[in-house]
């Protein structure tokens, strides 16, 4: 089996995995980072969104081998010790989740969205989260959370 090496949440990792291993499987099963979820497994729902070299991607639709050498960030890597990332904090304060299954992907998508555009309108946020599906909240409080976090992140 070939060796795949990458930096995940700042730590260098290297493992032998089969060529057809998906990145999400590598994260969850090889590294034990189960914060990244598998929802639909068909690239629709966005529960598996992570950052690869700063860009948000669906880790169920990328091979681990494609991320060889990449800098990967997952939901486990965004808090600063016990201090939540402003986006996590905003979801907490604005009741941006109910069951929480979609939340890791929502937060990873929302962070990239805010980092690339500090002046997001509500419409921008709704369109920006098009690739993330939530079946609980009706999105209203998610959008509120992202607006709140955008302000705290320097928007």
């Amino acid at each position: 089996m070939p060796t795949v090496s990458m930096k995940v949440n700042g730590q260098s990792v290297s493992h032998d995995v089969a060529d057809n291993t998906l990145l999400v499987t590598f994260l969850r099963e090889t590294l034990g980072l189960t914060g990244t979820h598998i929802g639909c497994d068909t690239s629709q729902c966005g529960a598996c969104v992570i950052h690869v070299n700063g860009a948000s991607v669906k880790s169920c639709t990328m091979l681990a081998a494609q991320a060889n050498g990449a800098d990967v960030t997952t939901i486990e890597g965004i808090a600063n010790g016990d201090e939540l990332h402003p986006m996590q904090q905003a979801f907490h304060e604005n009741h941006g989740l109910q069951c929480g299954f979609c939340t890791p992907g929502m937060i990873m998508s929302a962070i990239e969205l805010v980092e690339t555009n500090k002046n997001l309108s509500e419409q921008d946020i709704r369109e920006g989260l098009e690739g993330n599906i939530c079946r609980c909240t009706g999105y209203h409080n998610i959008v509120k959370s992202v607006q709140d976090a955008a302000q705290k992140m320097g928007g």
Partner: protein
Amino acid sequence: MYATDYVKAADVADAAAKLAAADDGKLLAGGQTLLPTLKQRLASPDKLIDLAGCGLSSISKSGDAIKIGAMTCHADVANHKDVAAANPGLASLAGGIGDRQVRNCGTIGGSVANNDPAACYPAAVLALGGTIHTSKRDIAAEDFFVGMFETALDEDEIITAVTLPTPQKSAYIKFPNPASRYAMVGVFVAQFADGVRVAVTGAGEDGVFRASDIEAALTAKFDAASLDGMTMSEDGLMGDIHASPAYRAHLIVEMARRAVAAC
């Protein structure tokens, strides 16, 4: 997903050699169609040849055209200031494919090579009269899109870039399927000095096609009102659970009208 071998090509020549040497090799571009296909076990290539290391991601503007490297992702096309200035229809098309995460991975070369009958890019390439550059030759858009999921590419031929002439005005409007976001009908309108070109995706049984009646009406007068009362033939249009041929025929004229209004 069935077992497969993954290799990363060093350059286009290396990729072509690896593709030729494989029994049933597949090129891996952004993977946003190929990987879901493999996960559903609808394909079982013995080798996946990744083009990510071949240096094919670039956007360059020459006098009257924009050349986009085959591995350029949709987000880069959508956000490029030269594309937005020269060809707003192209920028908005790229910015409307799939979702943000798909746009960060999916590529123009992959989209064009796959020639999905509901993909957006083929409409732009055909309406703009683009040229597809490959590892072997240059192919005009008119000759490239052969049929549903079918192109003029040889088995061992690799798209390296696409050149798209800059129109005077352009717009792309699609009626997205509410679930998949693929175009149920998408219309790209491009106005050039010598006439208007209009290409339709999502509707044709043979994939993307030019709408000659709409082109003639808009060349005579570039105004949405020029399409008032126009009807499209249902012949050759797709019918499925999402839309009948008659509904798609109606949507073609309506999307064209909205595209002209958006120019």
